[in-house]
């Protein structure tokens, strides 16, 4: 730990309680931050870490408890109050103005929040920023427009803006989720610089390995309560996981079920077959599919592994008629079909579960139960028109139990649930449809470890028990190898290789070598 000043803590939060209409988000949580320290906030989704952070930067006000900054009790009624007390935050959403340059952004933001800095006195401000860049060893082009920067660099710009406002408490909410490992190193270096300048950093994450790497102390939250605060140098992954999950973590690494994988006879007619599929992108960000060939048989779990930009989502959406086919054919049980829309796909027993649950999945103002049954009207209603409330409730309650969805009731608005639980609601929606082929796009991204394991196990269980086929699109190689009976490797819009997953370690090596061969070209 860095040298402690004689001064007290930078920040003390005492007895913070926050209650939302149906959920106790935080229950008497205390937290403190020393200068020159990186203090990690660890916990599963729904544990309360984001809520605590939002209280610290003034987005929420606590129902109980107080906040003391540098020895003075303060009331943070909005983020501006927080900024005025030297607290700055960085969330996953970048709040920079994309069409302006780095320099313009820093100057605008800085002078907006800090009265002493003036956008009008550009030279003085520029000099100040250049000094900061030198001091922190940041390598960035001040005249580059922000929209062209990488995510990591955008974060660095935000931090630079914060530094120019004399911030001394830096709050980070899951900063590493959108970053590659190289970019993570960059951010960590900057955080270490902040440490050396006696700034305080609060680092919220659900990634245990990261907290051990960068934090000095770690506070673990679970279900809104503080489990404990530990010294990062004196603990290990197992202990942290135990505190986070509260259970025995022998099942942490998901490997079961592989024994049941069966050999597919090549003579069987596949449930779905794609031959020579090419797609036409309708948006500039869409990845065009080229010569995609794949087969999915009945009663199997197939995974497609590929990094971001490989075209997995486009492929998934092709199977429900959203991505436009330019060339090639789709065969359903041996017959050629044209899939016109998600409704048409569903009538053929194909359902696509989106990865973007907020924009395309969850219907926020509808209840949890309504979200689940929206695709399954024919099963819960009379003639597809009149809803039978009792018929609806039974599968709803069953799924809440089976998938362990944390919700006060089936009838609260779905927007009240945490991200991981929303994902489970979507999974319930997919299961309620009775579809024969479930396409699940990134089932566990942005979800904590506990829920990840649950969902992966559920997927295998579903296929084994009900005989439906599942196609999982994932950028997580462990996930692909952990649940797939057959694994496809996809890159740049096309299928690179196909493997039967009888020896995961060997297949892993093969895929990695396939990947390096592509990169070398």
């Amino acid at each position, binding site marked *: 730990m860095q040298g402690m000043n004689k001064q007290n803590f930078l920040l003390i939060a005492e007895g913070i309680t926050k209650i939302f209409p149906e959920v106790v988000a935080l229950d008497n949580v205390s937290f403190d931050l020393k200068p020159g320290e990186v203090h990690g906030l660890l916990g599963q989704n729904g544990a309360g870490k984001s809520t605590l952070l939002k209280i610290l930067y003034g987005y929420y006000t606590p129902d109980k408890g107080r906040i003391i900054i540098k020895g003075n009790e303060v009331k943070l009624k909005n983020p501006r109050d927080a900024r005025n007390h030297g607290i700055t935050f960085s969330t996953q959403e970048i709040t920079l103005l994309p069409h302006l340059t780095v320099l313009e952004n820093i100057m605008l933001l800085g002078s907006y929040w800090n009265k002493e800095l003036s956008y009008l006195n550009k030279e003085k401000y520029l000099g100040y920023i250049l000094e900061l860049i030198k001091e922190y060893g940041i390598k960035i082009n001040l005249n580059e427009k922000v929209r062209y920067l990488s995510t990591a660099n955008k974060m660095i710009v935000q931090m630079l803006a914060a530094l120019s406002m004399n911030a001394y408490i830096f709050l980070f909410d899951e900063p590493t989720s959108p970053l590659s490992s190289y970019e993570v190193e960059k951010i960590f270096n900057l955080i270490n610089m902040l440490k050396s300048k006696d700034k305080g950093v609060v680092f919220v994450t659900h990634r245990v390995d990261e907290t051990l790497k960068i934090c000095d102390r770690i506070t673990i939250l679970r279900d809104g309560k503080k489990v404990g605060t530990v010294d990062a140098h004196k603990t290990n992954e197992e202990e942290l996981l135990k505190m986070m999950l509260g259970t025995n973590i022998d099942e942490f690494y998901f490997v079961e079920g592989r024994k049941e994988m069966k050999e597919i006879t090549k003579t069987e007619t596949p449930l779905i077959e794609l031959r020579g599929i090419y797609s036409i992108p309708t948006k500039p960000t869409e990845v065009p599919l080229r010569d995609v060939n794949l087969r999915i048989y009945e009663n199997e779990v197939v995974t497609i592994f590929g990094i971001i930009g490989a075209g997995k989502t486009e492929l998934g959406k092709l199977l429900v008629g959203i991505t436009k086919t330019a060339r090639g054919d789709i065969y359903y049980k041996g017959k050629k079909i044209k899939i016109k829309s*998600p*409704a048409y*796909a569903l009538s053929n027993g194909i359902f696509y579960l989106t990865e973007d649950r907020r924009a395309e999945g*969850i219907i926020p*103002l509808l209840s949890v139960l309504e979200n689940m049954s929206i*695709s399954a009207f024919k099963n819960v209603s009379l003639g597809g028109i009149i*809803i039978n409330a009792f018929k609806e409730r039974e599968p709803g309650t069953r799924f809440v139990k089976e998938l362990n969805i944390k919700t006060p009731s089936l009838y609260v608005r779905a927007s009240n649930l945490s991200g991981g639980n929303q994902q489970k609601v979507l999974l319930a929606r997919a299961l309620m449809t009775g579809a024969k082929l479930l396409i699940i796009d990134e089932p566990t991204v942005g979800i904590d470890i506990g829920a990840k394991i649950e969902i992966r196990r559920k997927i295998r269980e579903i296929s084994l028990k009900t005989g439906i086929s599942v196609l999982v699109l994932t950028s997580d190689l462990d996930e692909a190898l952990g649940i797939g009976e057959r694994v496809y490797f996809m890159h740049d819009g096309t299928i690179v290789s196909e493997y039967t997953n009888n020896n995961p370690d060997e297949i892993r090596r093969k895929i990695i070598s396939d990947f390096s061969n592509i990169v070398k070209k």
Partner: protein
Amino acid sequence: MSTTEKKKEEEIAVKSKRKSPLRALLDFYNTHDLARPLLPFIVILIAAISISPIYFLAPVNLKVVLYQTAPIALLALGEALTIIMGSIDLTPGSVSGFAALFAGLITLNIGNVPYAIVLTLLATTAIGALNGFLVARLKIYSFIVTLAGLEIWRAVDLSITGGSPIYGLHQYSFLMQDFHTFIPLVFIITLIVYVVFLFILMRTTWGRIIYAIGSNEEAVHLSGTHASLAKFLAFTVAGFLYGLAGIMLIGTSAYIVDPWTAYGYELYAIAAAVIGGIALTGGTGHPIGPLLGAFVLTILTNILIIMGYTQYTIQEIIIGIIIIAAAPALTRGLRWVK
């Protein structure tokens, strides 16, 4: 539920009860859709009764309130269907005006009232279907489609009568009769319509899809539900409701209709829906809300007239103020509004 989970729910309930009564009331207000229109309704009712109990509560006057609310409530319901879906409909005024005129013309030339009513309803339903087709299938913004509709159907009104009014449509007096129940027929019809739609919006798949579309249309589409069809039907049904309201207007406008009948009524429809708790952002709102909202508007106008403010402009100004005052209640919880 396991005992630990039960305990936690109790904990939450206990902690929630420990709030101050004002806090509890506010939370109730925010989470229950019916509370939003109920508050202004009760307020205006109490205000009206206190300002002039003699005149306001006179049976003759109450009847007036009822039969003036009836058509507006139907316009507001049709509008609410659209707004809940996240769209907007600017045609209530023009279409109901057209309906009144159309029915009047047919009655004048053929004299058969049921025939006129049926044809009129078919016509307005078709207009609604046209709107629905343009919005749901051709994907033109509802604001644009219905703005055009507003102009077009008003122009049609002007051309089919050459600008002159139609008098003496006393065949429609049955609409205003109360058949010894003190409630005029028009209002009974409105009530029946509302009961039907209460069921439709809360208990049918179509109703739920409408709310879902207003909340997240992309998700509805991806979930394999026929979102476009539901949208189309909503506009079509709204057209039907506007037609019904238009026919009622023949009765409530002293049996005289002219090309300017129901001019500007789309604003009343929207205002009534908004006061009724139908958020303009869509996805939420209680089906009875528009009825309460319509009442608020009519009672307000009524009490202003009783107090002597018979000028149209003053009434409009006050209605405008009320709408702006009611609006913040609808955006509670939103961080920014466009």
